[in-house]
């Protein structure tokens, strides 16, 4: 089986690579500093029709879909995986809205999301083992006309930059049961505070912070889907998100191995370029092999997602694979470049750019589990045979 791209998907991929080269490459170091959110860049992504790819019906590009989105994410990640994180978080919101949103919600948000006039974000995590289980869970309490939200969502990507959030809150019922429910909450809602920006190891173009809710009022119409179906939505979003994150892993690894191979072709030790040493060839071969396997997994899962076929086991396998091999690819790529590989700033006596230290920091953020350790394994094992 091969994974051919349609004409439209190829166009997206090509355009995305041009965007990465033209807009991202010159400013990757600034983006990595992560001090200012790249607002203009997001607007540019929107006007280039990159922000609505997961929304086939609304997308200005015919034939776009999740595969097109994956092409975009991989291309962006070859320059700045942090920018890809911004796009991924936004796209997950759009994906949720397209699948579970009411007609009114779609009308209200989708066109603006697709054009990049509004940026979306998704808030699932809490400090406990799962939503509603730890200290400071986000709780939703019914009141006249809607709900009141109180509590904390942790490690929210695009926090502070997003215009609208999909947050998952727990409703506690009198009979001791509880249910997770998704709510659309606009940035700037009264009682919603974005915590200080967290210092992430990498992917620093994308801001991460906790969201604190104190008596935030949401209307009945802001429920996504129905009450208590939040668990299903959140699980699916995590699954879709893990495939998109794996596309980031692949993009970073491909750019890294290309750079490392270039370095090995020029770095002379023992009288020859080190690319002639088998030890270096083996490292390069391992990275190329592992990133190719990850790519195959991503392509397969992305097509299942686009076809609306069952995809969770395949997504879990992708997550498991990049979990085992993702960081290792950059561990090895940095090793090839030695002292240059660990340079955050190219030493004064050396010419050229040395992006591998940043990529090493970035790739670790694309393979985080953020779930109990058996989360993916149990799902995969349950689907054997």
């Amino acid at each position, binding site marked *: 089986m091969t994974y051919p791209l349609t004409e439209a998907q190829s166009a997206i991929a090509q355009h995305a690579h041009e965007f990465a080269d033209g807009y991202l490459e010159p400013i990757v170091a600034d983006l990595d500093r992560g001090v200012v959110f790249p607002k203009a860049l997001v607007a540019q992504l929107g006007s280039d029709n990159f922000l609505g790819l997961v929304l086939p019906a609304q997308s200005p590009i015919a034939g776009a879909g999740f595969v097109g989105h994956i092409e975009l994410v991989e291309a962006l990640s070859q320059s700045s995986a942090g920018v890809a994180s911004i796009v991924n978080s936004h796209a997950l919101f759009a994906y949720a809205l397209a699948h579970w949103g009411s007609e009114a919600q779609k009308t209200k948000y989708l066109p603006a999301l697709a054009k990049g006039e509004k940026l979306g974000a998704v808030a699932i995590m809490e400090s406990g083992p799962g939503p509603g289980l730890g200290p400071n869970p986000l709780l939703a309490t019914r009141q006249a006309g809607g709900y009141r939200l109180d509590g904390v969502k942790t490690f929210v990507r695009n926090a502070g930059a997003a215009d609208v959030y999909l947050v998952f809150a727990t409703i506690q019922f009198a009979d001791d049961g509880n249910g997770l429910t998704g709510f659309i909450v606009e940035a700037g809602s009264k009682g919603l505070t974005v915590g200080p920006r967290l210092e992430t*190891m990498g992917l620093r173009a994308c801001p*991460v912070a906790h969201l604190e809710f104190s008596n935030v009022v949401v209307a009945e119409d802001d429920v996504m889907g129905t009450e208590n179906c939040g668990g299903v939505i959140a699980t699916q979003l995590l699954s879709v998100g893990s495939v998109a994150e794996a596309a980031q892993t692949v993009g970073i690894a491909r750019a890294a191995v290309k750079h490392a191979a270039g370095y090995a072709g020029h770095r002379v030790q*023992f009288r020859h370029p080190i690319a002639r040493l088998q030890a270096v060839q083996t490292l390069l071969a391992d990275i190329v092999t592992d990133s190719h396997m990850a790519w195959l997994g991503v392509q397969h899962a992305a097509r299942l997602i686009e076809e609306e076929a069952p995809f969770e086991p395949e997504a879990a396998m992708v997550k498991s694979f990049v979990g085992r091999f993702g*960081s290792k690819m950059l561990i090895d790529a940095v*090793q090839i470049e030695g*002292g240059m590989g660990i340079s955050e700033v190219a030493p004064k006596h050396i010419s050229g750019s040395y992006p591998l230290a940043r990529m090493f920091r970035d790739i670790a953020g694309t393979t985080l*589990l953020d779930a*109990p350790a058996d989360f993916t394994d*149990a799902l995969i094992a349950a689907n054997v045979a």
Partner: protein
Amino acid sequence: MNAISPAQRDIQKAAKDFVAKNIIPRAAEFDKSGAFHSYLLDAARPSNIFAMAVPQEYGGLGFSPLTQALVLEEWGYGCAAMGTTLSASILSMESVLIAGNDEQKRRFFKPMLTAGIGAFALTEPDAGSDAGAGVATAVKSGGDYVLNGPKCWITNGGEASVFVIFAATDPAKGVKGISAFIVERGQQGLIMGDREEKLGLRSSNTVYFFLKDARIPAKNLLGKEGEGMKIAMMTLDLARPSIGALAVGLAQRCLDECVKHLNQRFPEKTYPGQTLQFKLADMQIAIEGAREAQHHTMALREAGLPFSKESAIAKTLCTDVAMSIASQAMRLMGSHAYAGEFGKFMRDAKVMQIYEGTNQIQRLVIARSVLARPKVAVSAAQKAGAK
């Protein structure tokens, strides 16, 4: 298991306390700025720990290699960058212990008695793994040698009181023409570059410097002319397991932090299932194995037995384990680790796979030893196949 004596246990305990009080609380701050942690030298001065490798007859603590490793593991547990300052200083001392005369030893070790540090300068821009490809030269001129050439990736370079610097006295002889010199801080013609901004071990000072007509008195020659590369290789054999000790400490810290976080996030009632239990068990197995390999190397050294291969194994195994454990722990801890101080451990481990001889160079050493070992009769067919 190498039994640890009660005296060693006391030293280990003292190191643990020092690390808890002086290293762990400030590691993140210096990692962030990348500035040299000079406060540490002041804090360590009363204990004389920077002289732990200096023999007692020269005023040092004269710790055995295993005792030094126990201390370094604790320092690696606290902060591998700070531990590197100590281990790299000991690295420079080993050259003097190997080849120095009494006067040289007295002079070189004196700063260490007041928490001064040393630096070992072998690497050059075009001589990394290929250590013999350096271009630095030392030309005899009257009672001096005049040194010229670049040195890079020199740990402690910008902060050291004393240096061991390698330069060719007879470039025509290749590695057999390299000699080792003691150079003191403030030496005219020793021109310091800026510190490098590194991915990890950030507050461990790393510099580029160059020598421009630096006149070094002939009495600073270590050993004889042409013995430099031999001294360098023996020094690295001695010093590499120290990196292993730091790495074991770092790996144990990663696992401990991981368990601490998981206990917090997934408390008692959700006691971890076998998937997580086995992952944690595998991590501890790897760390314990690395620790034993490291201690074994020290035991061989203390017994006066050959330990070159074991030294390379200890460095490679321990730093590879540290990298792998840091990476696994990061994944298990998720965003909490990625958006917190844990990233330092992963970044620090990466540098350790590279410095003091990349793990690829170690593997060459180990493979040479593995392939040299069995001298069993080889059949004619096998011989033909080997060609």
